């Protein structure tokens, strides 16, 4: 229904024909997709590969780093108190700053500091650092909620068996916590997938940047449509998977109650 209205508007609006030509022209779309080295046009599909590898690398780093932050924050050992405070500051800080500013600060700040090899990395590395910093803060909070949702009596039962704190965390708490948070984690990953488009602000030629170059050279926006479709190809399966997991979780919980 909504799609039909959009289609009708595109068709019937006074400027509809121009917009169709600008955004939906198949020849332009194809040209932007495969690129044209002779004219200095980057292929959008190639740019999209950048989005994919950045997403995969960041996702792995975020999963590990976020978990570390959450575990430190929930630890009760007095030795870890400074780290615990740091993790609180960290999550507050990076959840509070728009991701694009973190990208600028890391992407322009680190190279500018003349810190030897740290300042000599490619923009892609800085982009990954920025995305990881921000998303780890979000994911740490997701993990924390999951860990807090594990009933205390599970910890008591484990400690009563003589399992130490570390073993209790590893074999009893985390397996249950992570199962609880898979749907919200996937939600964050869908956002991360899309936010890899922001790395274009650091001059990295990802799908968004390739589309942008195409539009400025050929005065046609079909590249944006192509890039959007590519993102949808990635995010829609993930969204469906998340929904399925949430539904499964729900039915399991309801079955448990009956």
């Amino acid at each position, binding site marked *: 229904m909504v799609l039909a209205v959009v289609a009708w508007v595109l068709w019937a609006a006074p400027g509809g024909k121009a917009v169709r030509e600008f955004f939906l022209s198949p020849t332009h779309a194809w040209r932007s997709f495969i690129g044209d080295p002779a004219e200095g046009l980057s292929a959008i599909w190639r740019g999209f590969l950048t989005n994919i590898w950045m997403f995969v690398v960041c996702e792995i780093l975020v999963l590990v780093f976020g978990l570390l932050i959450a575990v430190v924050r929930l630890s009760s050992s007095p030795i870890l108190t400074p780290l615990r405070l740091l993790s609180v500051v960290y999550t507050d800080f990076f959840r509070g700053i728009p991701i694009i500013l973190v990208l600028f600060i890391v992407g322009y700040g680190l190279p500018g500091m003349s810190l030897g090899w740290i300042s000599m990395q490619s923009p892609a590395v800085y982009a990954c650092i920025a995305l990881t910093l921000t998303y780890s803060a979000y994911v740490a909070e997701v993990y924390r909620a999951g860990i807090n949702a594990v009933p205390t009596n*599970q910890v*008591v*039962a*484990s400690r*009563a*068996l*003589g*399992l130490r704190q570390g073993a209790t965390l590893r074999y009893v708490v985390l397996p*249950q916590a992570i*199962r609880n948070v898979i749907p919200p984690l996937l939600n964050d990953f869908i956002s991360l997938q899309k936010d890899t488009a922001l790395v274009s602000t650091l001059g990295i030629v990802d799908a968004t940047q390739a589309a942008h170059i195409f539009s400025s050279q050929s005065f046609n926006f079909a590249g944006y449509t192509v890039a959007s479709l590519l993102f949808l190809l990635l995010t829609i399966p993930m969204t469906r998977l998340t929904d399925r997991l949430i539904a499964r979780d729900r039915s399991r919980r309801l079955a448990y109650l009956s």
Partner: protein
Amino acid sequence: MTKNMLELQNVHKRFDDREVLHGVSLTLAPNEVVCLLGSSGSGKSTLLRCINLLERIESGDIIFREQSLLDERIDVDLVRRHIGIVFQAFNLFPHLSVLDNITLGPLRARGRAKSEVLDEAYELLERIGLKSRAGDFPDQLSGGQQQRVAIARALAMRPDVLLLDEVTSALDPTLVGEVLDLLTDLARQGTTMLIATHEMQFARDVAHRVALLDEGRLVEVAPAADFFDRPQQAATIDFLSRVPKTQ
């Protein structure tokens, strides 16, 4: 005279301002079964949790195999491997199969060899009559079956003492029997147990001695027959008058 397995000396425990154990003293000999009776809120659970060091006591002492558990140098986790506890609410690990629930302690707390632990786990499952359910998850079992698994899980650690905290109170009346039968078997095999329970007939039949806890005070400790047939204290007589008769 055999040495005591466990000895509580004048144990005091308070939660904030409320004192829940007012100087409890009790001994448990090797192979002895003591049933701990008392109304809800009398401090039975707290007492068991204190012995397992899940709660810290304010004063008094807990001597386990001639060693004070309040000693600073005691490794709490090591002590717990020798003192098993089973809870009213089972507290099985829902993400682990029945078999993994039983082997987790021996593997991850004791660090024993897997093949040996598995053999023992199957033996335990045989004993509790659930060998065919080894691969099932806790929520696929009935309450009685879950509680039997919880007991097997505690036994897998080969504890010197087993503490049981009202293990039948959360069960459907039709399922109580199977758990009590298992405990009766364990008692016959010489398992040292301190059992907090509301099951009077079971206490009379199985316990060597019965103790009554009333508002945090141990009012009477006596051999089972004496306790039920010739109670000495007014509080015991009153308590027994309010519960179903046993014979």
